[in-house]
């Protein structure tokens, strides 16, 4: 499969690159652009981005697999990311994650059949002071694409999921 940016994306690409002293330095924002453009970042996208920026594809993989905000597989509308790193581990993160797996009927990184939720266990979200923390990305919400939910409990996440379901049926 060969991927390529649309003309509009190409214009944005050039603008991004122009802000950096060299092309290689633009790797992170260009990967975000690729994710927006292709929905996620498959190996072909890494190769494409590498070729555009003069970065060996393996080094694109290095970066893309490190940051949890790049999705290596297609994700649902809401990307629910549950932290189980140390602070969250000690305050109930793993229980919340286990509960969500049962509730949504998916494994880690799985997507519900209706395509509404993708669940993922992630490393520290940098919200340790209010652990346990959950991050929810909404593909369709361009105003608030990323929302943090802190001091979570099993009851609170049940309410959260219900809310998101409502949002999904109101504006699919």
């Amino acid at each position, binding site marked *: 499969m060969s991927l390529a940016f649309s003309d509009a994306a190409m214009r944005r690409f050039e603008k991004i690159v122009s802000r950096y002293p060299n092309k290689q330095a633009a790797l992170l924002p260009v990967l975000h652009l690729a994710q927006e453009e292709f929905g996620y970042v498959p190996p072909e996208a890494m190769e494409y981005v590498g070729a555009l920026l003069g970065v060996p594809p*393996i080094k694109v993989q290095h970066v893309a697999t490190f940051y949890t905000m790049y999705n290596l597989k297609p994700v649902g509308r809401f990307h629910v990311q549950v932290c189980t790193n140390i602070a969250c581990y000690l305050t109930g993160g793993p229980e919340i994650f286990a509960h969500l797996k049962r509730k949504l009927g998916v494994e880690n990184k799985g997507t519900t059949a209706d395509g509404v939720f993708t669940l993922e266990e992630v490393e520290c979200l940098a919200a340790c002071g209010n652990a346990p923390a959950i991050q929810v990305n909404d593909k369709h919400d361009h105003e608030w694409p990323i929302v943090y939910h802190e001091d979570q409990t099993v009851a609170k996440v049940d309410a959260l999921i219900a809310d998101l379901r409502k949002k999904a049926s109101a504006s699919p």
Partner: protein
Amino acid sequence: MLTIDGKSIPLACVDGRHTVLDAARAVGAHVPAFCSDRRVTTGGHCRMCMVEVDGRVVAACATAARDGQTVRTDTPRLKAYRQDLGELVVSEAAAGGRAGAELATMGVTGERYPLRRVAAGRPRDESHPYLRLDLNACILCRLCVRACDELQGQFVYAVTGRGASTHISWGEGAFKDSPCVSCGACASICPTGAITDRDRERSAGLIEDRVVQTTCSYCGVGCQLAVHAAGEHILRIEGARSPVNHEHLCVKGRYAHTFVHHEDRLREPLMRKSGVLTPVTWREALDRVASELRAAAPNVAMLSSSRCTNEENYLAQKWFRAAFDTNNVDCCARVCHAPSAAGMRATLGTGAATNSLEDLERCDVLLLSGSNTTESHPVTGARIKQAVLGGTRLIVVDPRRTELARMADLHLRLEPGTNVALLNSLAAALVDEGLLDRAFLETRVEGFEAYARFISACLPEDMEAITGVPASQVRRAARMYAGAARPMQAHGLGMTEHFQGSEGVMLLCNLALLVGAVGREGVGVNPLRGQNNVQGAADMGCQPDSTTGYQRVDDPAVRAKFTAAWGRPFPEREGLTLPQMYDAARRGELKAMYIFGEDVVQTDPDAHSVVAALRALDFLAVQEIFPSRTSALAHVVLPGASFLEKDGTFTNGERRIQRVRQVLDPVGDARPDWRILCDLMAASGFPQPFTRPSEIMDEIARVHPGFTGVSYPRLVRNGLQWPVPSAEHPGTPILHRESFPLPGGKARLVCVEYRRSPTLDARRGGDLMLITGRVLAHYNSGSMTRRTPNATLEPADRLQMHPTDADARGLRTGDVVRLENRFGEATGCVEVTDAVAPGTVFLTFHHPESNTNFVTSDVQDRIAGCPEYKLVPVAVSRA
């Protein structure tokens, strides 16, 4: 003052460039350090090297050694920390190698933490002929990543994932399909055995009994090898510490050594009896050679070997000159860098690289002409890549889009055969735009006025139609080269193996002279010598017009000197060059030939005519390590020794004389070549007193003015760069600092007009222009590399062809094709690629089946007689 465990430390370690780890090692304190290696930058990943500096726990490898520090490496607290860290390591990975051994001696048991072994299930791979990967042993020290990035510049590995799922990755698919170029740096540096290689696997269980430092014989870079051996086995080869290769090696130097014990090796002398080469005793073979040559003298010729040592080359020419009264001595420099020597001698006064490999790190612009360095001189190629990654600007002149051309700031992709037109236009742009070093031209160069008038007719705009390179690009290149503080040049056989080879090299010198880029650091004109000792063979006098030290045979003083030194009259007449030898043989004038370590039938151009010449001889003797197409025509074949089986010296492309040290005994009845030559000289009535190669070097030092200060004891560490005029002289990394060895001490600008190669007149409609050359995995005739697993990496000669030419012929990658022209026929295996331009094809000559040199042409460099390997029209069709 800095103290470590109560011991004070030598001041040399506190100079800001050393770490606490270096300092600890200097006093002999043992600090485990898994992720640090002097070849690469600091990682600070493993934390094993923790020490206390003024009571604070820090990573020794990542902390600078400073005056006043009090360091402890062995407190109970440190021991406990390290122990715990070790337990964590083994809970994840089944580390072997030096890290595994260290953990075992620390008493790490793996019982403290539940075995997580997240590592189990990480990739394993055995698809590659040399490298083996099992990342279940990996402790994520990332040395492999740094080695591949910082030594080879290949970017094969990256750290993938995050947290517990972090692992080393080479991307999708089998390792053999990764961009790896098999340099082996990662296997050499990995502390755990997660990445290892065939040699380490093969030699497991054998106990090393010696490490011998010697010089690689696979190209003119002259890398220093540390050969680890046990009895008659080579366990593995590592790069040695040396200014030439800084412990780095390529796939040939590191891995291609198993040919030594290959069953095909010549193990006994052979003599033709009733038409068949039959084993005979050394005595019989030596006597036959001596008597045949004596009978035919002076109509005899010696082709000496650029793959053999200085001492052997010296003996070869001494033998023929003194015993057979002929200057008919040549070597394969004739077919590679003789034009560099001729061109540079005419302009700068010395036919050798003006600068050193180290200057590649000092220059700020590199003009690289006609060299696919990353394949033909891989360790220098890797060095250039690092320089370019570090900001050195690169201009590549090459009809092919080589790996370095892809990295270059400017790639001047000229039509093959138009070097002279292009270089003239570059020079014309310099003069036109006044980009000159006037002071240098004034004081150190002759002939600028006339040159300026001549060159004004060669503007880039005038030459564009010939070279195919847009004038604007040429002008940009001229500005970049002239604008540099330290503009350096290097060139390869793409410059020399042409109709105007020598003249092309003169033009490179012109460029350097115009901008004053000779005689100081980080500049110069530097031929990348092809074979390991082609510099040395020429230095030793294996050419028909001059003897040892480029002392000309037509100079009566030189003849008197050598007559006195050798005790024999020195022949007066200039001898024949290699192509002239063939002509004379075909005419019946040359009667006998001695070919030493060269398969001319496979490697010289227009092979059919070479065979005809050799067949016309009354007598042919060949000294070789493997049977070859040339030895098949011989009357006597003498089994010589490979570089691993003898002592001597090689001189690399930066004029560095380096030791070759014997690691193994010669196979079977084979003998070191210098010994064979001494025996032959004795049999020819010209006995020599030498019992070891160092004595031969002592004689060379007496007759070669540039070698006066050379002796084996002085070569122990890093060798010496000639000229070495006295026993105290440190050698000469940079030539021409003050003056040029030419009349008046000045260099000369040379006016050369572009001439079309006659080869182009033979071009028929539909013909493609063939360029020949080498690939990474093989060396020349391939006699050695084909007999190692390198053959798996590159099993056949590849014919690179542009997609448009391939489409026009309905060809695809993998198709076998026939190449044909008036000289003969060859075959190749198509690789469709845009590395070659439409209308040109590229073919290697490593495999005898391909007969590449059956189609190369009879056109020669007008001055040095070097064949035009880089340009001949061929018709290509499906086989």
